[in-house]
Structure formats: structure tokens, C-alpha cells
């Protein structure tokens, strides 16, 4: 079975790192995986995007026209990719910044104030990790434990002191997403 995730938002929200963590977590579970970033002259505040495919079979296309789950962390990403949700897919919307989650149709919409939750956990910087915790709970495409185990691998050595807060953020997102 092929699982697909689009993570989008604005530069600085840790979109590419978040997508890499989903990739690493699924890879640790023995899955076939691809990760493809948007690649332009991105900068803080500009569009940031990555597509992750997780599968038991050979992955044909790393590029996605539609994803079964989209995490929209900011309006810039949400507006561009709101039409890319597969029928019956799950859209995780950061309602702290995206006010139009209610306009989505044909998919499950989970509106959560992810930026505010991240601040409550300790820092706006863990907004990506909160959303991934939600993703693990909603999609069951990766296990929460695999995400936590993958943190060491994706975080640069100068940010190792942030791992505890990131784990807290993953846990919090997981429970906000209904995971037990």
C-alpha cells in the first residue's frame, strides 16, 4: 500500500526537516520511501514544500498530483496545495495561521491551532513536530515511536539540546490528533 504526504507552509517552519523525519521514521520501519523537496530560490517566509511517499512496494512516482494527507502549516502553502488532497484524504490545517480550513471539501479536515500548541509546548519552532505527531495519529502511516527514534538522525548536532522539546511536541501532537 502506498501512503503519501504533502507537507507545506512557509520557509522557516521546518517543513523540509519535518518531511525528512517522516521519511526516516518510515525507513526505520523497513518501508520503501522517497522525499522530494520544492526546489527554488526559497527563503524564510516563502513557500516551502516537500512530498513524502511511503510504500511496501517499489515507488514509481516521487512527484504527487494528490496526497492522501496534507499538512498545511501556513496560508502560502495551504492556498497552493488545497486542491491536491486526494478524495477522502486527511487535511491537517494549522488554524493558528490558516483561517480557510472550513472551505475544504471531499476530505477529512482536522483544524488545530498548531502554532499555539507549539508555543505551549515550549517554542513556535516545534510547529513541524506537533503537526507530525498529529499526522502519526491520523494517518497511522508511521509510528510515533519511529518518529521519536528518527529525531537523532535528522537533527543537526548543534540542535541536539532541542530533542527533548521535539519529543514533547510529537507526543502533544499525537494526543491532539486523537492518538492513544
Amino acid at each position, binding site marked *: 500500500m502506498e501512503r503519501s504526504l504533502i507537507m507545506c507552509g512557509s520557509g522557516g517552519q521546518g517543513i523540509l526537516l519535518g518531511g*525528512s523525519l517522516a*521519511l*526516516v521514521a518510515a*525507513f526505520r520501519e523497513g518501508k*520503501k*520511501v*522517497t*522525499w*522530494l*523537496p520544492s*526546489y*527554488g*530560490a526559497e527563503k524564510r517566509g516563502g513557500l516551502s514544500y516537500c512530498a513524502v511517499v511511503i510504500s511496501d512496494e517499489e*515507488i*514509481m*512516482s*516521487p*512527484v*504527487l*498530483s494528490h496526497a492522501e494527507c496534507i499538512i498545511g502549516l501556513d496560508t502560502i502553502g495551504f492556498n497552493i496545495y488545497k486542491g491536491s488532497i486526494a478524495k477522502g484524504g486527511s487535511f491537517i490545517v494549522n488554524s493558528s495561521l490558516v483561517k480557510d480550513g472550513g472551505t475544504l471539501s471531499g476530505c477529512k479536515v482536522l483544524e488545530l491551532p498548531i502554532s499555539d500548541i507549539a508555543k505551549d509546548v515550549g517554542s513556535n519552532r516545534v510547529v513541524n513536530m506537533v503537526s507530525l505527531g498529529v499526522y502519526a495519529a491520523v494517518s497511522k502511516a508511521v509510528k510515533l515511536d519511529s518518529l521519536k527514534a528518527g529525531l537523532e538522525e535528522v537533527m543537526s548536532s548543534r540542535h541536539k539540546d532541542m530533542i527533548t522539546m521535539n519529543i514533547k511536541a510529537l507526543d502533544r501532537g499525537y494526543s491532539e490528533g486523537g492518538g492513544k
Partner: protein
Amino acid sequence: MKNSKQLMKGNEAIAEAAILAGCRFYAGYPITPQNQIPEYMSWRMPEAGGSFIQAESELAAINMVLGASVAGARAMTSSSSPGISLKQEGISYMAGMELPALIVNMQRGGPGLGNIQGSQADYFQSVKGGGHGDYRLITLSPSTVQEAADLTAEAFYLADKYRSPALLLSDGILGQMIEPVEFFENKFLELPPKDYILDGCKGRKPRSLFSLMMGPGVLEKHNFKLAAKYAKIEAEVRKFEKYKLEDADVLIIANGIIGRISKGAANILRKDGVKCGVFRPITLWPFPYAEIKAAAAKAKKVLVVEQNMGQMVEDVRLALLDDSKVSFLGRPGGGCPFPEEIADKVREIIK
């Protein structure tokens, strides 16, 4: 680094595969979307005991590679489309001097500076003579990060075996994407000794390497010799993947990342009962003309898909000599078709 799967960007996997294949000289000049190759080489090459040089220009880099090859080193350079255009003079000289080297082109949109998205617009440049003179360039097109690593090693081998530069022709998508990759021990046959290199002539007759051949008939003789070599390569080196061809009514022909995405399109179509298969050329030169002709014999329609406005399709037409069968889907300027878009085009042509 060996014998375990790890996650790597395509660019990094190419660089690591080159090191493991024994490449000990790299020269390049930065350009997106291949910058992870020189970045990786800048620390990895010294670690392996080789030389990494960030040259002052693409022209300098390709000529440093030429020089390193003259001295007997396994040498490579990498760039992206506009930078590869600048290297063409050096590639032509190496073809003339019969020097092995690997050139990696992670294609981006063009013409001109274009953009930095993935592209296949350098097909003509690669296989029809990007530089001047009567030469051919071994050209390999990978579709996965694993294949990019494997073909990097193979390109070095073929370059040495046939004393010819070889090109790994990939694109910005494969360069930037992350996928699991496993590095294998060199599985190629032993190569003949490099009895042509210039490594000091103490105790032996001096050698020379050049591409200027002014004497009457000398260059013509050399060109005949090169042509015989190219004929030998054409007979011996042809790589391709056949995907679900056995019962295919409609055949998609595509290379590189688009070949892979086309396999996704074939699977979508097969779910709807459309018998679709994919032929993916891996060597673009030598081009698998005979194999494509055979593969298309039973198919009613053939669709060529490229990230350009129609380049490889000309070789497919040469292979089939039956234009009535051939349709084309092209996405130029960094555009990339989704599997669904390719499937829709197939549905349109079989209507």
C-alpha cells in the same frame, strides 16, 4: 559506507559512488541543482586521499579533469545544463584524445540560464554531439537514486574500458530527492593497463597524447579508428528496462525520472484494463534502437514522454520507421508530468 541501505540525496549518492568506484580527482564549479556533489566531494575526496578542486570556471574544471585523466587518474566533473554547455570543448578534446572521465549533468530547464527545476532538455546535446567533431559520448540515464549510484560506477568502468568520456545524464529531481541506496563492491571485469598515460618516461619510450592531427590523412584515419570503437560500443553496451511489456497494446517510452513516473502511469492504466507497458532506455547512447523496434512490434500505439518538447522521440521514430504509431507528451522548462497526466494522454491516443 558499504553494504547497508541508507537514505541519501541523489547528488550525494553519485558522489559517494564515484569515490567507491576509485575516483580520486574531482574538479567542478558550483551550479544549482547539483551543488551537493561538489559539497560532498569537498570533504569526502580528501578523506579518500584524492584531490578536490573548486575551479575558477567550468572550462577550467573540465580541462583539469582532462589533465588528471592524461596522468592516469579516475577523474570526474559535474555540473548542470548551462555549465555543461561550457564544458563541451573539453569533452570533444577528450573524445579526440581517447581519454576516460565521468561528466555528470544534473539537468535544469533551459535554454540559457533557464531555471533550476529538473529537465531533460539536454538530450540532443548529450547524444548528438554537444561539442564539435565526429564523436560519440557514452550516456547513461538513471531513474532512481540507487540506479544513479550504480550507473556512476559503471560509467567509470565503461570510460576506462573504451577510453572514452562518459556522461551520467540525470536531472534536478533525482539530484534533490532522498531515497534509500546501497553501495556495492565494484563488480566489473578487470580493465586493461593504462598503457597510454603520461606518468614519466624514465626507462621507456616517451608517449604523447593530442587531438591535433594535421598530417595528410592522419585525422581521417583517426576518425575511422574512433568510428570502429563507437561501433564496438554500440554492439556491446545497451541497457534498458522493460516493464510489463509482454501483453502491452500501448507502449510508453521514457528515460530517467520520467521513465519511472511512466511506470506509475502504466499501473494506473492497467487497473482500468488498459494493457500498457513501459520501455525505459538506460543507455541513451548507444540508443537501444533494435530493442525498441522489437518491443513496439506488438503495440498498437507508442507514446514518448519527455521533459522537453521532443528530442528522444526522434530516436524512437528512427527505431520504428513508422510515424503513424508514435505520439508525444512533452513538459518543457522544468515542468514534470504526474502519472495521471501521462495516463490521460495514453487514454487520448488509444481512443
